[in-house]
């Protein structure tokens, strides 16, 4: 019994220690922008890697999500003769939920995994120590630009994904299933508010920041050679994935409550 209590005690202590380490890391990353703003030669290649090179995968994800939503929603609405309602259901789902979440998950895999692997490799090959010997703060030099690149680019990529998702849904609903073009957009216009787009973008800021922080942190935590790099990469993705899903739930709850407070009085 004593052993169990001791173990529980140790687990709680190590959990708090981990939270403390991550909080300090977060503070160091965010404050890094004021200490030494990332230089153009550092941030530009990152923007290309994180942003430009992710466009294709994000567009493909968005398009197929939009199309498959149209297939499923049309088949259900067709049974009750309400096909024209497909527009707002598809577009609202894409803009406020599926677009941000799926784009973030894809980017956590593509960008986050790559960042954790790169930083992990730098750690085990002593490149991070080399940075310190040459007068650079590794968090400031490596994590801060990656965090801000993710924070800025994940929402932009999400908007791309949303746009192509909306287009995919439209193509399937109107061009393939033959729903009225006018009613499709008229119904969408009626039920899809700017607020929904704002919620989607706000969520993607959170997801972008979370991916940047978690994946850099896991990269810096890498130990023990190539095996450690693999482990760090997996942990970076899994932790980001869970954070995106859990975060999405709480953000949805928060924004719905906020909406009720602002507009439903």
């Amino acid at each position, binding site marked *: 019994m004593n052993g169990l209590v001791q173990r529980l005690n140790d687990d709680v202590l190590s959990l708090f220690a981990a939270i403390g380490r991550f909080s300090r890391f977060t503070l160091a990353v965010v404050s890094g922008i004021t200490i030494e703003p990332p230089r153009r030669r550092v941030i530009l290649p990152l923007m290309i890697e994180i942003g430009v090179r992710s466009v294709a995968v994000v567009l493909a994800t968005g398009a197929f999500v939009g199309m498959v939503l149209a297939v499923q929603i049309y088949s259900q609405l067709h049974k009750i003769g309400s096909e024209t309602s497909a527009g707002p259901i598809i577009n609202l789902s894409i803009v406020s939920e599926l677009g941000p979440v799926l784009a973030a998950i894809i980017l956590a895999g593509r960008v986050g995994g790559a960042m954790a692997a790169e930083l992990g490799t730098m750690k085990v090959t002593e490149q991070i120590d*080399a940075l310190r010997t040459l007068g650079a703060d590794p968090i400031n030099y490596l994590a801060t630009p990656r965090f801000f690149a993710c924070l800025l680019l994940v929402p932009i990529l999400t908007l791309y994904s949303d746009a192509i998702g909306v287009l995919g849904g439209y193509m399937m609903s109107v061009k393939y299933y033959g729903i009225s073009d006018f009613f499709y957009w008229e119904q969408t216009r009626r039920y899809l508010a700017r607020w929904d787009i704002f919620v989607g973008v706000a969520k993607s800021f959170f997801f972008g920041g979370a991916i940047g922080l978690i994946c850099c942190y896991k990269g810096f935590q890498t130990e023990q050679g190539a095996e450690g790099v693999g482990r760090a990469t997996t942990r970076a993705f899994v932790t980001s994935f869970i954070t995106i899903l859990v975060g999405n739930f709480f953000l949805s709850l928060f924004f719905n409550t906020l909406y009720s407070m602002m507009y439903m009085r």
Partner: protein
Amino acid sequence: MTQDFYGTGARGPQALIRLETVWKRFGSTDVLRGAHLSIYRGETIVIIGESGCGKSVLLKHIIALLRPDKGRVIFDHIEISSTDEADMAAVRRRFGMVFQTAALFDSMSVRENVAFGLYRHTNFPERRVDEIVAEKLRLVGLSGVEKKMPAELSGGMKKRVGIARAIALDPEVILYDEPTTGLDPIMADVINELILRVQQTQNTTSVVVTHDMKSAYKIGSRIAMLHQGKIIQVGTPEEIQNTSNPVVAQFIAGEARDRIEETV
């Protein structure tokens, strides 16, 4: 030679670097157990010891990449073992470090690697940076590779670029972590010659960690043996060769004796 608390072969009363009773633990293993060492200005001290005995750990304490659990590390009257990380950049400006794996930045060209410290610590115009990079690469016998990426270089070339990067800011102290490990005997000797050349042209203090005795005898003005977390003997290469300490004698002779069965 006088025998003092920190070893033999002291060249002056004031050590440039002093490790005082340094303890360092990783997990449940005490890697350093009260290591003492004094390093004097202008000398090349070679730290020898078995693989995994903590030589690199000791070296990383000298530049505060690692901090001791107990004890102090003092560099030129500055207690670097307790200096804030933010203040260490100015101290590290006076050091150069050559890593075991060269640790070149993969995403940067050779020029960018060598120039990295120059960009961090100086405001030299691009032309001056180019001149220094070319000069340091010439010194390590690698002219004309500025545009190559680290992946295009052999192991020996990477070590040379690592040395060029370490000396770019003309540091007072250069730390070499296993500089000849993984190289063929000829390339290992080339690196030894380069260490001597850098020592002569830059007039630096050098600390070299190695288990290559040929290298230690060739480049060391003093040799220190690390064993079970402590410096057990310090002396000139001649004193080490004629040692009466059985552990040191076994190591420099490279004899297995009773070490076939290893306990972990």
